């Protein structure tokens, strides 16, 4: 029991961080599924969501601030796609990716300019930020809520993709971009929808993440973003369940590594795991096998 009490926090932190990665990873994996684009700016959208919340909470009550934060984040994701990716749809893939890096650079620098380079303290959110005790381990309530909320959201998303018309269009577009256009799918609205869903989940993820780890800096999105992306690749990019499972595995492994005292390697381990999986199964755990047409 003593052992469990001492080591439970690692596992809880792992599951919670895994859930937060999962919410970001879905954004990566859906965009990649349709556009074959590594959206490097996604992690920064996550960071901007955090900043919006910080500033919103200083002027308005929380029940206005949260919806506003979500709406603005979704709008940002939508705009980024329209301004930076849509004009490049016929350009080589490398160009879009560079555009994504450019957007990420721009968002980080804008955040640097607005915040003056200082870490912003994320406002405590009532109920979520409260301290609770689980099996003798003290933690914030958000740690426990995150995995539950993540799973609910993922189930809703899977249902959306499976049973609605737009979901069907998304599946068609990710299977074959050009044919789906020929079949009368409005590809631009499908892509916008993908970015909207991705940004929405990133906004929720950011709320959970920053409630737990309360400093918002211009580069706060970079590492979680990269890890979430790794999770998406790990689970098989393009697959939503894959991304979620990958994110949980990475979150838990990372914290176990830290718990074992190998803190220097906690990030490196994530990448090592990824490389091993890629070599053994080049399309990730749940990825579909891609057949190259000659």
């Amino acid at each position, binding site marked *: 029991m003593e052992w469990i009490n*001492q*080591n439970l*926090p*690692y596992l809880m*932190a792992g599951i919670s*961080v895994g859930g937060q990665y999962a919410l970001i990873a879905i954004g990566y994996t859906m965009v990649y599924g349709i556009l074959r684009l590594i959206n490097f700016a996604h992690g920064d959208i996550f960071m901007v969501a955090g900043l919006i919340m910080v500033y919103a909470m200083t002027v308005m009550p929380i029940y206005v601030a949260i919806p506003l934060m979500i709406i603005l984040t979704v709008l940002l994701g939508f705009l980024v796609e329209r301004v930076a990716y849509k004009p490049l749809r016929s350009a080589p893939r490398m160009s879009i990716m560079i555009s994504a890096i450019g957007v990420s650079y721009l968002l980080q620098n804008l955040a*640097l300019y607005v915040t*003056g*380079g*200082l*870490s912003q*303290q994320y406002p405590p959110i009532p109920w979520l930020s409260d*301290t609770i005790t689980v099996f003798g*381990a*003290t*933690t*914030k309530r958000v740690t426990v809520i995150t995995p539950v909320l993540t799973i609910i959201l993922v189930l809703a998303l899977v249902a959306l993709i499976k049973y609605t018309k737009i979901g069907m269009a998304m599946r068609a577009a990710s299977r074959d971009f050009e044919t789906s256009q020929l079949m009368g799918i409005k590809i631009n609205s499908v892509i916008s929808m993908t970015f909207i869903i991705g940004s929405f989940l990133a906004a929720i993820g950011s709320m959970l993440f920053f409630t*737990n*780890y*309360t*400093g918002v*800096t*211009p*580069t*706060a999105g*970079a*590492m*979680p973003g990269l890890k979430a992306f790794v999770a998406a690749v790990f689970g098989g990019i393009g697959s939503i369940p894959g991304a979620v499972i990958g994110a949980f595995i990475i979150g838990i492994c990372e*914290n176990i590594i*830290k*718990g074992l*005292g190998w*803190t*220097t390697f*906690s*990030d490196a381990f994530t990448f090592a795991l990824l490389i091993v999986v890629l070599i053994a199964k080049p399309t990730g755990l749940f990825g579909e096998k891609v057949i190259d047409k000659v």
Partner: protein
Amino acid sequence: MKKRALSVLLAAAMVSTMLTGCSGGSSDSSSASTDASATDGNVVKIGVYEPASGDNGAGGKQETLGIQYANHVTPTVEIGGTEYTVQLDIVDNESSNDKGPSAAATLVSDKVSVVLGSYGSGVSIAASDVFKEAGIPAIGVTCTNPQVTEGNTHYFRICFLDPFQGTVHANFASEKFGAKKAYVLTKLGDDYSTGLGYYFTQAFEALGGEVVAETFQEGNSDFTSYITTAKKSGAEVVFAPSSTEAAALIIEQAAAQGLEVPILSTDTWDSNVILNAAKGKNLDIYVTTFYQEGANPEFDAGIKDWINSDSTAKANNGGDDTVSGLTVMGYDAYYTALEALKAAGSTDPAAVNEALWNVDYTGVTGHITFNETGDANRDTAYIKQANTETGAWEFVAEQSVSK
């Protein structure tokens, strides 16, 4: 085939000639601080090499604030019988060892007479060679790592050193709390943090204690596991020298997990970022620093007035008028530089460098003279505790170490 190779080099040639073409016009535009008030021709430039963004941005801004306040109080200096207007040339080294040198190069090309800074030892070491090559002396304000001044003649500092600070903490931990086991958390790639961790460990082990040491990566925001390990290890104190940015996260996690042992930290934590983060939380936080508010009421009142009258200054100070030890050190550093300029009787960096060795100045934080390595002869540190109810620092002890 060769022609291609050649044409490549040729391209480089064209580009560089392009650059040369531009250099005539734009070399002046980089000397950005065009002070509108400097009407008479006699201007002496003091470079301020401090972080305004990145990990150490908050601390750097507070230190710069002290320098600006001092400049506000004493905007002119008499050098060799002529009145000079002091112009501050402030650059942001972004708390980053690879961006720092080019920020330093900007100062060099602006022809400053002396440089103040930086907060953070790593950036100071990184820029040291740039100043050395240009023959410009630098006065470190709160860079406490021994390597900053070691082995060179152009870098000075007015603060105490890490071996001293680490020892103070080790003594404090074992005397005040009777601690036998300490958990030390440092940041990878931060010379300040790793250095202090090392000296603390040395001193603490010499006192018969045991140390559990862990490190965190840059950009890490998840301190859950670290606090869990600290609790699990049974350590009686936590020693966490780190930047304020990480500090806020550490405090948040420590409170969330109900860490019961005291947290000790160093001069970087003497900031209202820490006070704000710790407010309303059940934590014991002790820091070592250079100055305790209230020691010089006249000075306190003056600077508070100034901070409150200037909204930018207030924002840079973290939104209130708590006087950080860093700000006071910045203030003293400015006057130290003025003393050196006066003694040198010239704005020539080499002369200022010579004059610095003999500077003898009594500032707000104490008496400042330099020893043969260019370090200040300082042997006392103030220890203060964060009052988590009122959000203010409380004086605990004045500690010195006999060597």
